[in-house]
């Protein structure tokens, strides 16, 4: 981050003048980098995603802002005709619709239905290359739901996808945040800056292949907002560091259409020695009532039926080993998801290594059997100290 100084007081004055009208931040995109200008401590500062102090990108932006009037020969149109939908988007929308029709016609009990398989193949053909993470994840979840006969999950996935197809057909300028979330497009991100994130969990989830996507979960310590971060197995373009870790984020892009929102950390510093305070904060964010978790889960699903995989922090009143569940103070049970040869509670207890469970962090799943949690990590009290232990 660099501080703007000298020679451009006029720009600072303009910024201050408009700050009264609500101007907080200006973002520019050039050469695939994002430059952000904002006020802090009464000074104008710039950030560039290239990470270089006083880089060429910042210089171009400053020149652009301070070079006076636009060239005379630039014509500005008073109205712009909306561009037509691109053919790739139309093909993708059609493929989603065909898949939905194939499912409805064949029924999900016909798990090896040729028409469903063909529609899935069509979807993959229509998808951008490489297949964007959200779309790969959607296909992975769809296949799992089909294989296990999870009608509810399948319907939610299709419903969400069909809503997206409507937006795709409206043209490339519509719903940029959805297009970014589904298709990894450049536009549509929101910015996140000057926050502290603590990474609390990691897991490998199914995409086009099993365990092909790594997902990390990070919590913003002030607001308690949970973010995810994702990468493909063979891709190293993701923030570095072990789990857990503390990241002081100067600048990140956020895809708000997913639940939890997906972050791309672009400028950050790390600390791998995590003190106890973040865990105290995580514990304070934990829900103690299942009814509240349930409401939040439903709200996330309504907002984003196809791209919501809510993450929750739950402080159970009791661990019911025999029932493979966590229980709240009112006696309501939250079942834990089990793998074929390992119950969720056994995995959780193995991770605690004998310490007392304070709260469990995990991904929530809506299944035919009800609401489940897949435990991903656990905050334990070990000799009077709070510590995070990874389950996955």
């Amino acid at each position, binding site marked *: 981050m660099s501080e703007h100084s000298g020679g451009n007081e006029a720009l600072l004055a303009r910024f201050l003048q408009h700050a009264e009208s609500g101007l907080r931040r200006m973002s520019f995109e050039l050469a695939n980098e994002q430059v952000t200008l904002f006020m802090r401590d009464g000074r104008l500062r710039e950030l560039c995603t290239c990470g270089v102090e006083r880089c060429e990108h910042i210089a171009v932006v400053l020149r652009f802002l301070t070079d006076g009037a636009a060239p005379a020969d630039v014509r500005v149109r008073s109205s712009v005709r909306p561009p037509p939908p691109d053919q790739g988007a139309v093909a993708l929308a059609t493929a989603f619709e065909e898949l939905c029709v194939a499912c409805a016609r064949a029924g999900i009990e016909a798990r090896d239905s040729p028409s469903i398989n063909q529609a899935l193949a069509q979807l993959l053909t229509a998808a951008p290359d490489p297949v964007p993470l959200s779309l790969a994840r959607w296909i992975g979840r769809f296949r799992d739901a089909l294989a296990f006969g999870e009608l509810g999950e399948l319907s*939610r996935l*299709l419903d969400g996808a069909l809503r997206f197809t409507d937006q795709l057909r409206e043209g490339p300028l519509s719903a940029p945040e959805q297009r970014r979330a589904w298709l990894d497009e450049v536009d549509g991100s929101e910015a996140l800056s000057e926050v502290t994130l603590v990474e609390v969990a990691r897991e490998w989830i199914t995409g086009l292949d099993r365990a092909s996507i790594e997902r990390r979960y990070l919590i913003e310590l002030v607001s308690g907002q949970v973010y995810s971060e994702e990468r493909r197995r063979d891709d190293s373009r993701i923030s570095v560091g*072990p789990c857990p870790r503390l990241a002081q984020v100067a600048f990140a892009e956020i895809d708000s259409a997913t639940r939890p929102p997906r972050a791309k950390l672009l400028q950050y510093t*790390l600390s791998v020695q995590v003190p106890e305070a973040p865990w105290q904060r995580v514990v304070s964010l934990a829900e103690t009532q299942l009814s509240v978790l349930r409401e939040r889960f439903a709200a996330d699903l309504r907002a984003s039926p196809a791209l919501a995989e809510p993450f929750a922090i739950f402080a159970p009143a009791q661990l019911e080993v025999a029932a493979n569940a966590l229980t709240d103070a009112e006696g309501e049970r939250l079942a834990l998801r089990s793998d074929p040869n390992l119950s969720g509670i056994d995995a959780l207890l193995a991770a605690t290594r004998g310490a007392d469970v304070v709260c469990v962090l995990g991904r929530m799943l809506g299944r035919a059997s009800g609401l489940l949690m897949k435990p991903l990590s656990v905050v334990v009290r070990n000799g009077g100290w709070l510590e995070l232990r990874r389950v996955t």
Partner: protein
Amino acid sequence: MREGLGAKPELRAQLALPADSDDRAVARAIASELASADVERLSRAERRRTAQPGNGSSLMPVAAGDRSFLARLKTSDAEGGESVAAMVDVPTLLAVLRAGSLQQRRAAARRLAERLTDKELAPDDRRSIQEVLEQLRDVEIAYELLAGHQLLNGPTSREAQSARREAIELGERLKRELALYWEGETHEEPLTKMSGDARAQLMLHARDLDDTLLWHVGALIEGSTDPVLKRALLSSVRYASDARLVPSLVSLLEGAESRIVIETARAISRIEDARVWPALLAAYERSVIDVERIALGAALGRVGDGRAADYVRAQLKSQDEHVLTRALEGLRTLGTAEDVPVVLTFVRSSDPVIATKAIHTLGRISDGRGLAELRVARDAPSGSLGAAAEEALQQIGSRLVLRGEEPDDDALPARAEPERKVTATAQPFAVRVRAFRHYAIGRVWQLLGAHGRALRRFEVAVKIRPDWAVPMILAGTIYAARDDYAQALALFRRALELARRSVERNPLVIVHVARCFLRRSEQVERDGRLAIARGLLHEVLTLDLRRVPSSLRFEIGRRHETLRLLGAG
């Protein structure tokens, strides 16, 4: 949606759609309705569910058939029945320490350490514990053995305490360096710049190290996209046995890179954690590559699941050398007495690597039928085969004791032979005195730190008496300290030709020799001469390396394996 549109002709009416609506509209309406209904259902409190018992580790199959004492011996009191944790009898504990499963050997080492703190322990028992702990070179339980060593008297205890202290201090230092690395203050990752044996030595003490360091190791093995680095790190954590690494290791088992999966299986199967067996089983059931499947099957065997035994047994017929050696290794955890005749045929192999692996496997299977053949191997001139056979005989002897059988005394290892003096061939007395004078002056220079002068004196002594190994070894050590491993290697080789057993039996010397071979092989490997590097490691593996620190032995073995694989393309 469950049964398909054809099964419900009245659906359009139910969805309030016109009768002539196309399937696309109907499908869309169904998805929307069902999704809303599902979200509504999930938002409501559920009836109290019927308890569904956890089905985790309790589902792990228990080997049936073997009803012997050892097969029924538990590791902790909590499991009920006879347990190592409650065992008092020292000879039995020592036998379990040699011949038990990994979990039993670990428990026996812990229990023996407890017994050492018992003030009422008989002096004879204390002595026998000390003897066995000092003699045993079982890298799988190295951490527990070191904990026992610390409770002994004498130099072994001091060495063990110092090794642990050094590991903890190194861990603390690394922790600070890691903080700087992740904060971007330095670009050199501190663990990867360490040598493989130093890293493995550190990781033997993983359970004493701080969380930060283990998280870092986890992040490196999980996040690195460089398979060579990943494999090197994985082999360093092979004996770490730390549950904090389980999440990262499980994630690697789910990957598709076969060599990574093999290394991961070895590392994870040595960790006692409920998540390990299900992860190994899932990987085994997915795997279709022979060497990978054998490694996963063997790892399952190590955690007590013998389902892969038949599969691994069948691979002994393979014509592929890699598959064969993996299968021989796999039978160490999966083999039974019935496998002994087949494994014995490999003891006679002309390839010392295969023969040594077969002997180790016989030791782990521990059946009396292998004794006669092992006795022959023990007396063979090859150092590595003899050493392996001696260990195997001890394991079988212990196992027979635990099974209540009578070991054949002739077959069991003889008492350590008295040191065979390296005698010089007849030389005129004056020549010997002259050589000794140079040697003695060289020693003085060496003690004063004047290594160049010392080296010249040793070289003169060698010239005067070319049949005297001692100045060769000292000169070789000085060359090695200067990283001139080529020169050192030549001198060590000559010393080995003259006094192999003396060199092998002197722990201070053999460690230099082994390290020299390793470093020289690294040098020639860097020059691209892989075959020579492989040959050097093969050569050092034919020595009796029992007195070499386990981390160094392990690194030699690991590099040899890597180069063999590279040689096979």
